[in-house]
């Protein structure tokens, strides 16, 4: 908290009103609506709804399909987070090492940040296409018959590759700026204490990067959970069928294709609780970070 | 005429911490008062209360004839120079200095005139269109001074204004601030933890410790008649030697069973005391009778003076002597002049 604060009674409220109003109408109202709907069963033809208590939730818990989607989401989130963090860290460490062209590399490695997920997805559609995809042909030379949209795991692979490609730049930017904020004297001290570069990295540099890594972990989890919607929707060509989808995608199809307001809402509530936990963890980390800096 | 009067002014933070215990004093017009003390002693809090940046929990504060307890900082007609200068980074030097005047609704031409005058006084005329980031540390300091001057305040407040400068610049600015304040004939409160600044700049020094004002006095009074062991050890470098001793209710103080020193006057109190002697008041004795034995450990060469560190009656003891070509034995004999001895209560640390 700031030491010097104004004590005007009305101004801060006036300043907060627009934000609070928008959040109330477009966040809390829908969120409350979702919680309420999750206790009702909607008539598919729009003739009212019946209160069913926790039935939507128990249905979810027993649904084999929901479990399958949840497992896939877990795996997908793990794979996307792990690979995009690992690749970005490797590139950031190398970019931090080199003297020549450091700025050029930064530009080349970060610009993909600006590409929309569905555009990335469209590129994936072209590259992994079963009959004309360039990468499909490459895989063919290794004897892997890649079938996007037909084979469950092939589609999953394409999704993960595209999602990772799209996420590496953000992680790279954060890791590089984290590396650059490590004081030169600390590096020099490490240089004197440890002759192995790998040893220096894991003993000194990586622990100093850990706060950045934790922060990115949360960012990447939410990215994999929600922001890859466009990637998935394009790669399955808006027709999920037997293809792998994530939890948030299922919220969307059950709600808009299945007209299952109650079930979709219950899934929304589950996801919201999950993210709320992540938010709290994130804030805890933030507050703790103060000690690092 | 700007006198500053505080009557039983006190600061307690919401968490119950008493930052400033009730204190009363008057600062006369044109005086430069230095508040000095270790960090966390409440000196900055006191200054910020005078500025109006910190509320006053209890008591009454007036600047001139006006009680200012509830007066907004902008309306107290004060000016403040901050430790990190707090210049507005996006404004030019001229705008930085003129911003307060502009907020008072002063005409543009008049602002320009005042800013130019102040800039001339501070040798900043060539830098008026620059931004703070394009200036050196010393120049930024001057801009902060200029911002204070143009307001023509009743009262200058300085919060450790020189601590971000290097030693050489600090010495120079010390003199500049002092002469500027004299020239403008403006009352000033100056906070620092640097005792050299306190000694050289102040008309009067307020020594603060743990939220209390320990002593108020001229630099000479503070130095030669410290009212407590805290003041004695805080002011002066190297600090005053403080040794446990006892008085016997007569004209002597005993450092050890076989080591008694004569006092200037009779002391009624008998019991343990703390004996203080400034290192520079001690003299080396070349032969002759009497004297106090001193075991020498280390000699520090400071150029103009030498510091001899060692043991006296089993306690750490420092002697400062003028430089002269000579070598030292391990054991020396000291002359501790009786008018240089200070006696303090061994528990409260107050002067006896």
């Amino acid at each position, binding site marked *: 908290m700031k030491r010097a604060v104004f004590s005007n009674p009305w101004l801060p409220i006036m300043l907060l009103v627009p934000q609070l109003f928008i959040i109330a109408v477009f966040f809390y109202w829908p969120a409350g609506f979702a919680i309420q709907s999750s206790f009702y069963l909607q008539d598919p033809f729009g003739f009212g709804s019946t209160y069913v208590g926790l039935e939507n939730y128990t249905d979810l818990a027993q649904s084999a399909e929901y479990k399958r989607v949840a497992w896939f989401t877990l795996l997908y989130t793990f794979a996307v987070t792990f690979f995009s963090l690992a690749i970005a860290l490797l590139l950031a460490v190398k970019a931090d090492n080199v003297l020549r062209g450091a700025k050029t590399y930064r530009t080349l490695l*970060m610009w993909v940040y600006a590409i929309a997920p569905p555009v990335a997805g469209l590129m994936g559609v072209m590259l992994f296409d079963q009959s004309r995809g360039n990468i499909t042909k490459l895989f063919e030379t290794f004897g892997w018959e890649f079938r996007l949209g037909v084979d469950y795991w092939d589609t999953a692979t394409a999704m993960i590759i595209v999602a990772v490609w799209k996420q590496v730049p953000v992680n790279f930017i954060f890791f590089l700026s984290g590396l650059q904020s490590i004081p030169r004297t600390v590096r020099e001290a490490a240089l004197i204490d440890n002759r192995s570069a790998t040893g220096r990295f894991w003993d000194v540099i990586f622990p100093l990067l850990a706060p950045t890594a934790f922060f990115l972990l949360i960012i990447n989890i939410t990215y994999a959970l929600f922001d890859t919607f466009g990637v998935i929707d394009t790669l399955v060509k808006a027709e999920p069928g037997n293809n792998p989808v994530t939890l948030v995608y299922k919220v969307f199809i059950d709600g808009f294709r299945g007209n299952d307001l109650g079930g979709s809402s219950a899934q929304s509530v589950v996801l919201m609780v999950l993210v709320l936990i992540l938010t709290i963890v994130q804030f805890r980390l933030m507050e703790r970070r103060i000690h690092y800096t | 005429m700007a006198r500053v009067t505080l009557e039983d002014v006190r600061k307690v933070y919401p968490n119950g911490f008493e930052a400033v215990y009730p204190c009363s004093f008057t600062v006369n017009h044109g005086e430069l008062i230095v508040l000095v003390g270790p960090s966390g002693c409440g000196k900055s809090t006191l200054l910020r209360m005078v500025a109006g940046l910190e509320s006053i929990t209890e008591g009454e504060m007036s600047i001139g004839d006006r009680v200012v307890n509830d007066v907004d900082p902008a309306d107290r007609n004060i000016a403040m120079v901050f430790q990190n200068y707090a210049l507005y980074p996006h404004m030019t030097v001229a705008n930085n200095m003129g911003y307060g005047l502009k907020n008072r609704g002063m005409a543009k031409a008049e602002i320009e005139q005042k800013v130019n005058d102040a800039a001339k006084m501070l040798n900043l005329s060539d830098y008026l269109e620059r931004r703070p980031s394009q200036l050196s540390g010393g120049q930024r300091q001057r801009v902060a001074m200029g911002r204070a001057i143009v307001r023509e305040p009743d009262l200058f407040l300085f919060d450790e204004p020189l601590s971000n400068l290097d030693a050489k610049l600090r010495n120079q600015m010390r003199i500049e601030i002092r002469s500027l304040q004299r020239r403008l004939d403006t009352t000033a409160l100056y906070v620092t933890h640097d005792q050299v600044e306190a000694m050289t700049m102040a008309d009067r020094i307020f020594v603060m410790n743990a939220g209390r004002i320990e002593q108020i006095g001229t630099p000479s009074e503070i130095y030669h008649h410290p009212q407590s062991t805290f003041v004695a050890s805080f002011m002066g470098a190297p600090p005053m030697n403080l040794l446990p001793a006892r008085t016997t209710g007569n004209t002597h103080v005993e450092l050890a069973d076989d080591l008694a020193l004569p006092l200037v006057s009779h002391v009624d109190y008998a019991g343990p005391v703390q004996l203080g002697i400034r290192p520079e008041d001690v003299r080396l004795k070349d032969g002759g009778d009497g004297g106090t034995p001193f075991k020498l450990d280390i000699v520090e060469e400071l150029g103009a003076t030498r510091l001899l560190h060692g043991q006296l009656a089993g306690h750490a003891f420092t002697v400062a002597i003028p430089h002269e070509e000579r070598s030292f034995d391990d054991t020396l004999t000291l002359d501790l002049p009786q008018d240089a001895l200070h006696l303090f209560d061994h528990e409260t640390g107050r002067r006896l």
Partner: protein
Amino acid sequence: MADITETSAPATRATPAAPTRRRINWGVIGDHAILIAGSLFMLVPVCMVFMTASHDPVTIHREGLQWWFGEELEANFSAALFERGGFTDTVDGMRMLTNSLILGVGFAIGKIIISMMAAYAIVYFRLKFATLAFWVIFTTLLLPLEVRILPSYEVIQSMGLTNTYTGLIVPLIASATGTFFFRQFFRSVPEELIEAARIDGAGPLKFFIDILVPLSRTMIAAIFIIMFVFGWNQYLWPTLITTEEGFFTLVRGIRQIVQVIADGNAIPEYGQAMALAIIAMLPPVLIVVFFQNWFVKGLTESDK
């Protein structure tokens, strides 16, 4: 960032001191090899899409993405920009480009104004319900619209805001990301500045307008870039809210392309599709590349 060379200096400065010079050189070459590989990984797919945008559909249909320029570059781009029909029935690329700009700029500006005000209130005022307001706002931090997509849609529909720019933009603003960025930045502004301003007679509004907003210029620019990219790249929400083609954005248009490809009735206009994809990525990419110093600063500031 000028300090790249500066901060990476120690690692390389140590090289001459190492006894075996040749091994160290191999290390540097290895570093560059990895960085070049990474850069190519990022660059090549997009270059291929660009090359492919200059070919005719039949070639693309037969061979997939192309490695070099064809004949149809101008034709494809002008068709994608100015011709109606193709993947949509009634809008051309220019209309979608305009809509994308409205969404990106409108979202970014709205977000900046609203979140700056809120962050100012949170950081600089003693509020009665500060903790409550804080949590009410920051609960929304990581919860994107996608999570509560169906109820949000129902709410907007009940308000009659489908197929309006308001319905497209405002609900997206309902998250605290911008407020959080500004909160972090305001907290790093030295306290003495506000104290100096108070002594200079600046009240809360004057301080905000005269000092804080100009001080935040870089931050505002950075957040504008981040939010513009975020708004421009929105997909699911525009897909639901805009059913009239007149409101389609470029990214929304991608969905039409994918559906045409999925239908597989005739050979889709692949060249035009790739041209449209390039147009859809160009503005945000250019902004991020040209203003990367601001953008990087703003992005990484948030995790302090």
